[in-house]
């Protein structure tokens, strides 16, 4: 495959010929140093990965940071990539690992941080103050909808991380159970059990809106 010379901003406009390639072919081209192929992958996955990370962390800025870190790892590890799984499984796995590392770092930091004096009281929902800012004026209906949306995000973000990842991948991102099991490296039964448990917890939290 011919390498395409793309000057900044790379990836904003990718050659149409890359659109016909599947993810494995694009990774193969990336491995050969084709940056345009890499940015085609970025174009395909930046939104779902950012969405997934935002819902995992309930922190939009951090989600953007980790989404970019995810793509950097895809790029720098391209020579190790093996096409024995779907590329989407591979990239979700990287993003999941980064998100879980970040959640654990927050837990550790919360133990010693002076900022914790200003943290919400114990029992408050995690990351409740970290919703994506949107300063546009909202009509009443949209205001109610926005409030409901934030409540759902907070409820999801308050789930234990082991339930959270599985539920988001299934019920928001729409992945199949088998792929979730591959992403999380868990047995299929464990994945189903965790998703069921997460739904029951969420049902309790959001019962007033159901």
């Amino acid at each position, binding site marked *: 495959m011919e390498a395409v010379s793309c000057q900044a901003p790379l990836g904003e406009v990718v050659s149409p010929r890359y659109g016909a390639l599947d993810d494995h072919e694009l990774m193969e081209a990336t491995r050969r140093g084709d940056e345009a192929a890499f940015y085609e992958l970025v174009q395909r996955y930046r*939104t779902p990965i950012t969405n997934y990370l935002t819902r995992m962390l309930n922190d939009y800025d951090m989600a953007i940071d980790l989404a970019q870190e995810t793509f950097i790892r895809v790029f720098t590890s391209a020579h190790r990539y093996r096409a024995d799984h779907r590329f989407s499984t591979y990239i979700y796995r990287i993003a999941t690992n980064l998100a879980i590392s970040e959640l654990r770092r927050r837990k550790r930091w919360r133990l010693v941080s002076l900022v914790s004096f200003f943290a919400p009281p114990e029992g408050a929902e995690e990351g409740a103050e970290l919703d994506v800012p949107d300063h546009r004026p909202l009509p009443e209906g949209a205001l109610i909808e926005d409030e409901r949306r934030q409540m759902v995000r907070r409820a999801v973000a308050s789930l234990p991380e082991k339930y959270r990842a599985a539920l988001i991948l299934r019920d928001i991102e729409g992945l199949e159970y088998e792929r979730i099991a591959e992403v999380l490296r868990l047995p299929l039964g464990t994945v189903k059990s965790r998703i*069921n448990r997460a739904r029951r917890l*969420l*049902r309790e939290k959001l019962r007033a809106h159901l």
Partner: protein
Amino acid sequence: MRCEQVKQQYDPTCDPPQSIAEHLARCAPCRQYATELQRLTALLRSEPEIPVPADFNRQLQRRLEAVRTGSSAWWRFGDLRYALPLAAMLVMAVAAVIIMNRPEPSSSSRPGPSLVRAPAQPERESLEVPKKMEVVAARPAMPSPPPRESGHSSPSLREGRASLALGEEAVPQEPWLLGGSENSPILLLIREPSGREERLVRLPSVVVGAEAKPATLSLSMSEKGTENVF
């Protein structure tokens, strides 16, 4: 099939198997549960897509350039999210070192022994008595019987918790030592063999662990003994 089994196996994103469907048809609470899960799933799936910033690729390109030039680690290190905790840890480490190396207050400012240094001292404290000096009397600072002239030749003086080992040249002529109350220090009168110089050593009630340089006073022996010294 029991209700709990249904709740464990029901999946609102899939068609229910026959056994669950039959249970739901005849069990209102489980039917209500299934309906709520279906609404919950619909609520989650209706979540709007979160847009990425317009300069996402530009930022990514900059970071990739940093990785290529080997400055990625420094880029992250320079990020305030990492720099601030590191700076705080550094400040705490420096403060801990300063506190641990802080010099102790001088013992000359305190009349009694240093309780901090006490464990490091041997149980039998050797009292440094200058050569050519002799211990002639020891008594508590509280009013006590006057010193007696006739003495013993024992080199050790013991009273209460006090234990002194005196050098050979400090054999007391009047080796008596009276422990006073807990608050009264012990006075030790040391006299040069020629009798021209005497020293009064003030010992605290507990001398075990006392520092090697007790407060000393030189004085000329007076008729009133040591009572006018302090």
